[in-house]
């Protein structure tokens, strides 16, 4: 039972990272119908950016008091901002021209962008995993006999706070309404006076910034990062988005937590080498049997 709870908490922490990444997939898919394959690499970019910012601030070990708030805050917001900019640039340079192209062309381009980003990061920090400073003090709290670390609280708390902010933004602001309108019907939205290019750029900005947050969080949580992390994490987050119902924000969060929990239980019960097989099997099963996802609605095929 202890082990069960411990794995559950593990899975939720892991899942909150996937959920943050999945939001970016689902937003972009919702608005332009593109599987942004490079999104996972933007997430890795986020951990690299926060690493670089912490390096500039001279934060190499555990931080306390004001230094913790300032340095961690700068790394978090810096990574989110830089990733957001990267996302906007990627959309502008690689995807915008292909908005009306045959459907597979943008996907192939996105795979290309992913490879370019991976190569850039490999050149930047080398081919091996890079250590990430353990900036958080790490006292564990014992709840019902299960130790929960401060890192896990921070990871889950940050993720939930970000998701709430996103919900408020998308459902409570003018820009959010423009995003929803564009996702529903791009031409009609344009006729209503919405600047489509700006709205899509903002979607990429927010989605990529969330990936940047996830990158920072994963660095703090794992205390290591690697140029190739984004491939696996991105695929799992995409699985989460599909499982929850692609285009649906709440679904992406739900899917993220579920995938995190599945991965952590598969690692516990079957061994780490089977966890990827389990997650990808879910991806295939979800796409084949319920492509609309858990919370998505079934749409008639557009002809």
């Amino acid at each position, binding site marked *: 039972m202890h082990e069960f709870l411990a794995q559950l908490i593990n899975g939720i922490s892991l899942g909150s990272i996937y959920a943050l990444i999945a939001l970016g997939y689902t937003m972009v898919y919702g608005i332009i119908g593109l599987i942004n394959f490079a999104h996972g690499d933007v997430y890795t970019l986020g951990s690299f950016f926060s690493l670089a910012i912490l390096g500039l601030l001279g934060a190499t070990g555990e931080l306390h008091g004001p230094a913790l708030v300032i340095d961690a805050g700068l790394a978090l917001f810096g990574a989110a901002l830089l990733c957001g900019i990267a996302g906007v640039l990627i959309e502008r340079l690689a995807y915008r021209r292909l908005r009306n192209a*045959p*459907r597979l062309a943008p996907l192939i381009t996105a795979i290309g962008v992913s490879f370019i980003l991976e*190569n*850039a990061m490999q050149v930047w920090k080398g081919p091996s995993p890079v250590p990430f400073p353990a900036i958080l003090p790490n006292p564990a709290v014992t709840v019902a006999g299960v130790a929960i670390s401060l890192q896990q609280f921070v990871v889950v708390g940050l993720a939930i706070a970000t998701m709430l902010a996103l919900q408020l933004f998308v459902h409570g602001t003018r820009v959010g309404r423009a995003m929803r309108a564009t996702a529903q019907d791009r031409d009609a939205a344009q006729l209503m006076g919405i600047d489509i290019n700006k709205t899509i750029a903002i979607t990429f900005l927010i989605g990529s910034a969330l990936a940047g947050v996830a990158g920072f969080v994963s660095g703090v949580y794992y205390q290591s990062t690697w140029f190739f992390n984004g*491939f696996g994490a991105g695929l799992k987050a995409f699985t989460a988005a599909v499982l929850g119902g692609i285009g649906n924000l709440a679904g992406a969060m739900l899917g993220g937590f579920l995938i995190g929990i599945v991965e952590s239980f598969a690692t516990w019960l079957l061994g780490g*080498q089977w966890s990827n097989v389990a997650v990808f099997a879910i*991806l*295939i099963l979800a796409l084949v049997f319920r492509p609309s996802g858990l919370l998505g609605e079934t749409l008639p095929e557009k002809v």
Partner: protein
Amino acid sequence: MIYIYFLAAIAVVVVAERVPSVGAKRALYAALGAALLLAPLVDRNDSDYNVLADAGVFVLLALGLNIVVGFAGLLDLGYAAFFAIGAYTYGMLASPQFGIHLPFWVLLFVAAALAALFGIILGAPTLRLHGDYLAIVTLGFGEIVPQIFQNLTAYTGGPNGISALDFPSFFGHSFGQRALPYYYVTLALIALGLALARNLRESRLGRAWMAIREDELAARHMGINTTLVKLSAFALGASFSGLGGVVFAAKLSLVSPDLFQFQVSVLIVSMLVLGGMGNIPGVVVGSLVLTLVNSVVLPQANALASAVGLHVDFSSYHFFIYGAILVGIMLFKPEGLLPSVQRREELRHATAPQDVRA
């Protein structure tokens, strides 16, 4: 010296596809074929044939993937899985692993059949999907297969794989360590693959593939059995990869799971995209160009850089090259460098959003 082979082959294909006369075209291809067959009389450097045999395996893979992606329009991002299945077939049935030593020539057929079978197994559940969802499912499959080979340590040797595979032999003459026999095997398989791909394209089945590529719904309403047609594309495409896997494993005398990662699938997709999806000569040129870059140009650039004291490892730029090809071609020349006339027209005038699936 090795450059001559690649550049000559590429030049002949490009020129032959441009000449208007059918006779001249046939003559050019016949000359290329004869030159490739007779080359070992002049060039006795076995390392050249090593590179060329590898290139041949990739040409074969590209021809197979072209059936799935180029003809039928089903983007398969897990093609390396079938390559792995072919290679492991040889690895497990012609090595000390289980003490089974079946002949190479038999295993070519076995692997092609097994890969085709797995093509159907993968294809069957994905029939309802199309476009990008199909691509992602095949990617998932492509990730699972090498992982399973890695995990089943008792059968597959785990992460280390299986080594000391049998040398194939031809009427009692062992291939030994030389690359030359593999060069001839890949030439023969490419000739077979080219003939097969060409005839399939012109056949009723081939036209059905192109019909579902252009518009699946319309194709179904014209009476095409889309289930059968899609499955046959997966099966036939995969069988090429099974053949390639056997030759690859036998030549390397080794199989291990890390040889069949996602990058291999993307490399082959890049070959197609570069040359022109759906056009056989284009695909051959695309795969020749990329193998030339990968196994000749980059290592030589490294040697050159270190000779002038420059510390750049060009071979760590593979990802960048594949990525730049995919992005650049899709943005600026989506029909590829050597497209068929028909395809170029289609892609240039495909303006209707959403409903045209390449």
